[in-house]
């Protein structure tokens, strides 16, 4: 679509099993900032079956309008019906900006919509906003996070972006807020060529590092699996979870879903203990938003200290057992 008469900021309101994804609220908060600059209306787009009940939450977190398209073919996510439905809605309403969470679902869907609309899509943005010239720009990490690129979509509309989870804080919900409800019908059929055979909750669910308040994270400096167990013990004592930098995952000591960083998970715990981690950019991008960063490293100049609130220059093999003992003593 050309720029003319494209208006409005859209947020794709990802939901599964009738539950909105947390990124929706984070992106709505950012959309409110964008609105301060451009004055454009914020619309949340809700696709699914029996999902109209989710609209009030979208209003409370900042949406002024909610477009709902209910359809049997949208009951469970699959790429092609969602691609078609969203494309039809965009073609009808012509928004200027369309934001998605950079979740596994968002990143499955958005590139297909990019193709059907022949527009641009910035991947996995960690920031977005208008620059000095009023151009809508996105910041996205490349080369494993060692470089940030500033991307803009100058001519095509809508300007589409997937936004990395946990980059923005949701606003305080305004309870009882409401807005424009727009019910749409979409002309789509279920995808007979794609089928979800089985869905299992992740065994470690409720145990994922993504939603832990406290993380104890170990790096390449950890000498043995025995030492890693001590970190796990510390995590358990604090009611937190064990995470790691990439080398420990590569060595097979921990599964990939424990890896923090660019090619792992982005986390935003209240507290994180980094133990024997040097703090490469690829690791830092995954945890720099933690509330309180405490790092243990026997090398004074380790870059991890540059982003830490507290530093302990020490050998973890002496410090961690002493800390466990001290905590046990105080808890007793």
């Amino acid at each position, binding site marked *: 679509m050309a720029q003319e008469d494209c208006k409005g900021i859209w947020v794709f309101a990802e939901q599964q099993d009738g539950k909105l994804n947390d990124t929706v609220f984070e992106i709505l908060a950012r959309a409110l900032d964008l609105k301060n600059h451009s004055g454009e209306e914020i619309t949340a787009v809700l696709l699914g079956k029996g999902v109209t009940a989710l609209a009030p939450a979208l209003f409370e977190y900042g949406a002024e309008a909610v477009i709902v398209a209910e359809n049997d073919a949208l009951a469970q996510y699959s790429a092609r019906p969602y691609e078609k439905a969203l494309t039809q809605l965009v073609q009808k309403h012509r928004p200027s900006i369309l934001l998605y969470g950079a979740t596994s679902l968002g990143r*499955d869907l958005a590139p297909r919509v990019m193709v059907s609309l022949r527009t641009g*899509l910035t*991947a996995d943005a960690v920031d977005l906003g208008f620059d000095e010239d009023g151009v809508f720009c996105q910041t996205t990490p490349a080369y494993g996070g060692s470089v940030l690129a500033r991307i803009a979509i100058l001519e095509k509309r809508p300007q589409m972006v997937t936004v990395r989870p946990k980059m923005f804080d949701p606003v305080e919900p305004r309870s009882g807020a409401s807005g424009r409800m727009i019910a749409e019908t979409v002309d789509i059929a279920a995808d007979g060529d794609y089928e*979800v055979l089985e869905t299992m909750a992740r065994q470690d669910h409720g145990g994922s590092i993504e939603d832990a308040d406290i993380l104890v994270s170990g790096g390449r400096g950890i000498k043995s699996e025995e030492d890693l167990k001590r970190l796990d013990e510390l995590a358990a004592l604090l009611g937190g979870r064990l995470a790691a930098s990439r080398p420990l995952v590569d060595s097979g000591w921990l599964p*990939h879903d424990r890896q923090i960083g660019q090619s792992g998970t982005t986390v935003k715990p209240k507290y994180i203990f980094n133990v024997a981690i040097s703090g490469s950019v690829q690791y830092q991008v995954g945890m720099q938003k933690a509330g*309180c960063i405490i790092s243990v490293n026997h090398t004074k100049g380790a870059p991890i200290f540059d982003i830490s609130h507290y530093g302990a220059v020490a050998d973890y093999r002496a410090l961690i057992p002493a800390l466990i003992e001290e905590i046990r003593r105080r808890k007793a």
Partner: protein
Amino acid sequence: MKILVFVKQVPDTDDVALDPKTGRLVREGVESKLNPVDANAVEAAVQLKEKHGGTVGVVSMGPPQAEDVLKKALALGCDESYLLSDRPLGGADTLATAYTLSLAARRIGGYDLLLFGRNAVDGDTAQTGPATAAFLGIPQVTLASSIDVEDGWVICERRLEDRTQKVRARMPALVTVTAEMNKPRYPKPVDIVKALKKPRHAWTAQDLGADPSRIGMNGSPTSTRGLMEPRKRKADTKYFQGQPREIAAQIADLLHDERLI
């Protein structure tokens, strides 16, 4: 069964440097390699061929030296390679890249399965696979950690944030694979020699019948406005002092103040 694997050549470095004057990437002296997870895609294709029969073609778009990664894929067991290389293809974003790759798939034709890596370590958008599926109008399975085929369907496991899924897609379909899927083999010297005799094709934009307005820079709605080093949040770090036992006590004090213990 006919499988096509798509592979990208990427810089062989963990940390890229920016030229402080121009803000551009320093490319001198940086070697290139096969994008790591693309080796898993190649391995998956070769294993499927070994199990079910058929052929594996490998495709890359890039400058002439991308031939290196194609040779590597041939040594790993692919049967034929296709290099899409031409000046006007340069500077492509994912829309233009996927358009070009889909033209190549169409021209090769008769495919059952297209395999991609989940993401490349340089541009790292993870968009090229799904976008190519969209151009071809075929179903896709992203983030696959296992793969098999049965009765015209490809069956995969996907590991998502809070769930794992087993899904199937009717072929022809496109799958993006993750590193968990397998351990890529090492080519034996004899495989490297054999690879030299395998058919290799080189195609230009014209060979592909590409619309010039839809490839390379012309066909790319996104543009890079600048590159930056990540801002180092130089925190005002407070260091604990003393021997490990003393430090442990100070940390415990902190944890206590924060009501964690």
